[in-house]
């Protein structure tokens, strides 16, 4: 029997809340693709930032399901209609998450610092004029400012501070967000990265990228700063493979 995910007919809706779309499906597909690894990971605290309709956090809770009964879920959204709709979607599937209407994870950052084992984020990634970012309704779900990076660039440092030592982040990007540059930026903070799902539609090319704290990368980074040239090549080879994969995919568009 395939693992359960949220059912569209049970997903609640509101005119001011972004319904599940291709991007939501790509993110859930990435979680399904990594299901065995996620179960082995035994996340204790999971969080979704920008839960919208609740489709993704509900699917995550169902995917981890009975095999990960001890996980605790948090879901935030800056749109109060969205947190209400998320609550309805969770309840319709018989699962639970701690809900909060807030900006990114504001209010949780102190107590949950370094405690989140799994984060899933479908950010507002669409390139728009800067003044469209963060409106109070539906547009806040997609308006991403210049190159679609304005909100993404605010979320990443928050994710870095919340993620535990073994923390994993699954985040969705549009090709226009320059995911390669994001991977390089995260590498500087000690994260490895990998594309889990890549999907092209008529309108957009989506990547779901997984990030994890990679101690090898951190050590090599430090050695590089201190001038050591004997740093093992492993991290660089790894990165080069990521670059070629990403650039290959982006030139195909």
């Amino acid at each position, binding site marked *: 029997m395939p693992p359960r995910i949220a059912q569209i007919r049970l997903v609640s809706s509101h005119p001011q809340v972004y319904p599940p779309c291709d991007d939501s499906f790509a993110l859930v597909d990435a979680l399904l693709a990594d299901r065995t690894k996620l179960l082995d990971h035994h996340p204790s605290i999971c969080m979704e930032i920008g839960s919208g309709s609740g489709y993704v956090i509900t699917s995550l809770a169902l995917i981890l399901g009975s095999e990960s009964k001890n996980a605790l879920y948090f879901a935030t959204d800056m749109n*109060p209609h969205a947190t209400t709709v998320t609550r309805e979607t969770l309840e319709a599937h018989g699962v639970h998450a701690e*809900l909060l209407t807030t*900006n*990114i994870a*504001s209010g949780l950052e102190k107590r949950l610092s370094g405690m989140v084992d799994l984060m899933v984020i479908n950010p507002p990634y669409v390139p728009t004029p800067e003044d469209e*970012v963060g409106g109070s309704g539906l547009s806040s779900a997609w308006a991403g400012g210049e190159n679609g990076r304005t909100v993404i660039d605010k979320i990443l440092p928050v994710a870095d501070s919340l993620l535990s030592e073994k923390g994993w982040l699954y985040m969705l990007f549009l090709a226009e967000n320059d995911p390669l540059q994001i991977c390089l930026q995260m590498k500087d903070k000690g994260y490895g990265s990998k594309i889990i799902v890549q999907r092209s539609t008529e309108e957009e090319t989506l990547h779901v990228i997984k990030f994890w704290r990679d101690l090898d990368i951190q050590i090599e980074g430090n050695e590089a700063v201190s001038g050591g040239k004997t740093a093992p090549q492993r991290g660089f080879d790894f990165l080069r493979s990521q670059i070629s994969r990403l650039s290959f995919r982006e030139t195909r568009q």
Partner: protein
Amino acid sequence: MRLLTHNMLSSNIKGVINGFPLRIEAEKVVIKEVDFNPDFIKNMFSKIDWKALADASKIMGYAELPEEVPDHSVLDSDEFLQKFHHALLQLHLEEGALVCPETGRRFPVNKGIPNMLLHEDEMNLDATCTSSASNP
């Protein structure tokens, strides 16, 4: 909002040094039964600020928790775990507010969901999403 959520929330207002715990103003408290899962509860024990939970639980009308931080050995007591379970997971603040201990700023809780959105002049710049984010 369960007290588990309350236990993880701090005031996020600019300049506030110790915004924890938020004071609860309870207008409507509901009890929702959840399956008892001793492993989950034990796992949560180390993550919880006990005093904040015991005080919040009392305000919500449940005064069965010890005020002092219990010794780890209490985790062997089923009676204790049941009380801990009830306070942490079954008491819900459905309507009310959370109040910043330093500034007195009230964060409303409606339909069981706390709203921690800040006004522009309350935000740290690095935590600012956008200026319009402050006008929900």
